C-alpha cells in the first residue's frame, strides 16, 4: 500500500495524463498515486482515463486552481 506523488504543476495537458499512465504502470495493485495538477484540462482527462481503467479516483482541490487526484491502482 505504498503511496507515490506525481508533481505535474505547470504542465499542460496532455503531459500530466501521459506521466500518470507511465507512472501507474510501475505501481503495484493497491498502491496509491497522487497526481498534483493545475491545468484544468488534466482535471478532466486524468480522472476520466483512470476511471475507464477501473481505478478508484478521488479529486480534491488543495488550493485555488490546484488539485490532487488520488488514484488507487486496482487493476
Amino acid at each position, binding site marked *: 500500500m505504498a503511496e507515490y506523488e506525481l508533481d505535474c504543476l*505547470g504542465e*499542460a495537458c*496532455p503531459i500530466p495524463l501521459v506521466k500518470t499512465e507511465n507512472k501507474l504502470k510501475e505501481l503495484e495493485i493497491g498502491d496509491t498515486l497522487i497526481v498534483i495538477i493545475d491545468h*484544468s*484540462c488534466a482535471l478532466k*482527462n486524468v480522472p476520466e*482515463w483512470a*476511471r475507464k481503467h477501473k481505478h478508484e479516483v*478521488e479529486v480534491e482541490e488543495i488550493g*485555488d486552481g490546484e488539485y490532487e487526484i488520488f488514484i488507487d491502482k486496482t487493476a
Partner: protein
Amino acid sequence: MSEEAVRVITEEPSDASSRRSAQTSSRRSSRRSTRRSVERKPKQDQTIYGLGVLAIVIAVGIYLAAAVSAVMGIFWVTGIAFGFILRRTNFCFTASMRDPIMTGSTSLTKAVLIAFAITSIGFVAIQYGSATAGLPVPGMGFVVPISFATAAGAFLFGIGMVLAGGCASGTLMRIGEGYGMQLLSIVFFVFGSFWAARDMGWWTLNFISNGPVIHLPAVFGWGGAIFVQLLIIGLLYIAADKWETRKQEQES
C-alpha cells in the same frame, strides 16, 4: 447535451467513488490532513471578488451597449459567457481532437459535434430568415473556397494546439484562469498569426483561389442543406461513440 461533457468535473464525481470515499474517508481525511496541513494555505473565500467582477462586467456591458454600440454589448456578453462555460465544463476543442487518439475518450468530441449541430440550426435559421425577407444573406463573406490550404492549415494548427496545450479559445480561457504557461503560448500564437498573414498572398494565389466555393443551401436548398449537415454530424457522432467503445474493449 452529453452529460459526460458538460458535467462540472470539480464536483465530487461518480457514485462508485463516492461510495468508496465513504468507506475510506476516515483513512483518507486523517492522512490528508497530516500530510498537507502544514504546507496548505487555507482557501480564501472569493465570493466578494466574484461579486465585484460581476458588477464590473455588468457596468462595462451597459457602457458598451449605450456608448459604443449594441453589437459591442452583445459581443461582450457572449464572450464572457463563452469563457465561463469553457472554464466550468472543461470544454476543450484541442481535447476533442486529441483524446480520441490519446485516451480513447470521445466525450468532448461528441460535445463539439452537438455544439456544431446547434449552431448549424441557428445559422440556417438566420440566413433563411434574411433570404426569405429579401435581405442580403449574412455571413456570406465567410463562405470561402475549400482547397489544399484548408487541410494544410488544419494539420499545422492541430500540431500547434496539442503542443501548446490549447487552441485559441482554450489558451485565452487558461490565461484568464491564471495559468502562466499559456501566456507564452499566446505570444507565439500571435507571432504565428502574423507570419501566416504575411504568407497569405502566396497561399491565396496558388491554392485558395483555385478551390471550389460551396454554400450548401445553394446546392441542396435550405431544408436539404440543414438535413445533409445534421446527417453528417449525426454519423460522426455515432462514429465517435463506437470509437470510444472499441478503444475501451481493446484496452481491457
